[in-house]
């Protein structure tokens, strides 16, 4: 993600808007090294991103692993019907969207705030330390993180201990057995795990802001907060927009591990996401076709959302992905 946006910049700026260089043999010859270098990447994308689309045919069959393609039974939209007509589907979709939106909003706000704060710290050692500590959890797998979350939220865990000591609550709260808390717990775990990592890209964007702008603002008498709001934030706006567009494409990816590992019977109405549903009724039953149908649904939604977000960004005159 980081490389893409960082490396994109010089490429975007070079050609003058509106005017395209005509494609000529001499141009191709000129750029032949570049063209050759892009061949493996192109091959990689075709091989791993386009060829597998062929597998979508499985969604319209009763797919059996050992049979040849010609021997598969075609069933039309049967699996899509099962997916969309199931009583639980709406609930599962609601949970997925809700947790996704919570993660998106919380993730963006906390990461940007933390980046702004870190950017203001002048002592390099202190800044680096905070940054390192805050991004380390990113490298833990969710299995470990959910273990930590479950322990901290246990009835004798640190969260309850602190709240009891502060006399905010009288009885320990069972955070994980109350459905209403579940989305919040998931959102908070995401923030804890990813906030440091997400700030890296904003800090990088901030470091490329022209220092002259700050000096000019200072001469004009801008306070520290004014500089943050009128120099730093506008400076990283293109980055924010690009990241937002890409995240909106993943709106149906509310995550799978967290909900799967933290969920239990008491909170299932809030915890089950599309991925878990597809796992339970698709892959776990050997029904690969249903799993594929679920995948197609998610992809279609993702692409649509991506295009919409991109279009909106274009209307607002912001940087775009496509």
């Amino acid at each position, binding site marked *: 993600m980081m490389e893409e946006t960082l490396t994109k910049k*010089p490429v975007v700026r070079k050609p003058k808007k509106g005017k395209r260089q005509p494609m000529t043999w001499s141009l191709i010859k000129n750029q032949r090294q570049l063209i050759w270098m892009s061949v493996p990447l192109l091959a990689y994308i075709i091989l791993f991103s386009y060829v597998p689309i062929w597998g979508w045919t499985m969604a319209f069959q009763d797919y059996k692993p050992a049979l040849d393609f010609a021997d598969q039974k075609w069933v039309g939209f049967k699996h899509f019907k099962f997916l969309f007509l199931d009583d639980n589907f709406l609930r599962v979709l609601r949970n997925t969207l809700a947790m996704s939106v919570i993660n998106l909003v919380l993730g963006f706000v906390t990461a940007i705030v933390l980046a702004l704060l870190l950017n203001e710290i002048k002592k390099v050692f202190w800044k680096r330390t905070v940054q390192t500590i805050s991004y380390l959890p990113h490298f833990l797998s969710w299995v470990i993180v959910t273990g930590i979350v479950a322990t901290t939220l246990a009835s004798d865990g640190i969260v309850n201990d602190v709240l009891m000591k502060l006399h905010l609550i009288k009885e320990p709260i069972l955070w994980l057995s109350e459905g209403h808390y579940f989305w919040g717990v998931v959102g908070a775990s995401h923030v804890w795990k990813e906030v440091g990592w997400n700030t890296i890209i904003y800090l990088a964007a901030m470091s490329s802001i022209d220092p002259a702008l700050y000096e000019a603002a200072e001469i004009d008498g801008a306070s520290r907060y004014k500089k943050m709001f009128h120099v730093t934030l506008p400076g990283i706006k293109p980055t924010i927009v690009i990241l937002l567009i890409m995240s909106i494409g993943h709106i149906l990816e509310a995550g799978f591990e967290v909900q799967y590992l933290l969920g239990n019977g*008491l909170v299932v109405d809030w915890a089950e996401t599309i991925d878990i549903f597809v796992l339970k009724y698709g892959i776990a039953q050997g029904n690969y076709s249903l799993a594929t149908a679920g995948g197609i649904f998610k992809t279609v939604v993702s692409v649509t959302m991506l295009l919409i977000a991109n279009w909106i960004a274009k209307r607002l005159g912001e940087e775009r992905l496509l």
Partner: protein
Amino acid sequence: MGGKSKSVIRLGMIMLLSFSFILAGCGGSDKTATSGDAKAGNEASGGSGEGKPEPFEITAFIGEAGQQPTPDNKIYKKIKDELGVTFKFEFLAGDLNQKLGVMIAGSDYPDIMTGNTKLTAAGAYIPLEDLIEEHAPNLKKHYEKYWNMMKDPNDGHIYILPNYGAYNGEVSSTWYSGPAFWIQKAVLEEAGYPKVKTLDEYFDLIAKYKEKHPNIDGKPTIGFEILNYDWKNWGLFNAPQHLIGHPNDGSVVVNDGKAEIFADKDYAKRYYQKLNEINAKGLIDKETFTQNFDQYLAKISSGTVLGMFDQHWNFQNAENALITQKKHERTYVGLPLVYDEGTRDYYLDRPALNLNNGFGISVNAKDPVKIIKLWDRLIQEDWQKILSWGIEGEDYIVNEKGRFMKTQEQRDKFTDATWKLANKADTLYSFSPKMQGFFSDGNATDGAAQPEEYQAGLEEYDKKFLKAYGFNSYVDFFSPAPENPIYYPAWSVDLVEGSEAKIVNTKQNDLSTKFLPKAILANPSDFDSVWTEYTNEIHKLNIKAYEDRINEVLQWRIENWSVK
């Protein structure tokens, strides 16, 4: 600008390099795989003369995670020296269904594979009945009584050789690994070793003990645990069938060969209402429904849990931890509880034939005759003794009465996993056909089933405990197992992947996972309304499809399994 575009190129180069590495890596592993296969093929096709053993390699897929034996393993070396056979095991790493999917898609099978209905359905095994009739008289004799049961319900062929459950003579064991209401020995000891028969007595004992000892080793005492995590759901689901005196048939109760679900029945309600009642008294762990399996084991290992409904093998590791800590009074006794005094408990069952679980020979095996002949040789008593007990004098001793015993040192070694990798052929033994019961000289086929060996290995605490009850082993707490009904057990019915029956079953489990905790934790006055909601939801499902599938297979078993 210039600097930036240079770094872009550098970045590009790095990515290019790493991709080429990945691609190279893929290609390489492919090559080694095929060359390995070719080698196995060559060796397999080389000669099949009798007498002097020709070197012969068998490749095997084991459908569960495991560890490779050491290269100089004592038993495998003996097999190689005397029978000329070497084994190459591939253990499961990761998800079984995924691995099977890949194997099936490419018809990429080793010589032998552990049983799985997916593989059978894909036609990956060869029929064995003619091979056994022709080349394996000992194997035929071993399975004689069970011959019809081994046949596949769909086409009547034998594909898998069951690894457990073919007994000669009376079944006896000193070890119970199945389901029960477990209770800490300390609770019974303090109550003066009472005989506990009913659910009410059980919870009374726990309540009294917890009241008297609110803390154990400084931590709050937990009265009762119910584990319902992932596929380990029997802690919550399965108890009602046992409480009315039925054996473990999974989620159905079978009467006269007819199965019906019990989740919505009144005797199930009685159990969950009791749990609701004891929860109101604070006996159930508050976190019991949110804990994962590790947390559950951790609680049991701490010695603070007084009781739970579970299968012994499931919390075995936690109990071993208690033994290591020398907290013998915190280990557990299984109690076969029922609702009413007059009901005969049926927890202990006779081991049923372990279908779909041993080895089968794959369609790719070059020389099935040799493989079946190997098993025919290994099923004979001399090899069975080596595989089970080890080498006489090294791993066990024969006392003056001709009984097999172990010294304490040998006993300790048998619980040491590292020692076993070098000195036991456990992978081969556990999935191969095996004698169970007794050898012709009267010794048990398994160390744990040899009564005097079991007694000698008992801890002081347990000796005293059993003496107080006048029992020989903890299995004596259970009523002796009656003869199994011919169709038993219903839980081994293959529901068929993706069928309506399977989906209904999944949905029913989802409902139970959701509603039962709610009902148990509800205010006692609300219990009835939650229960009604729960049963209404169940009745919306097509339960009949599920019951029909089970009954269909039970009927098939009654018709085909009867020993003629």
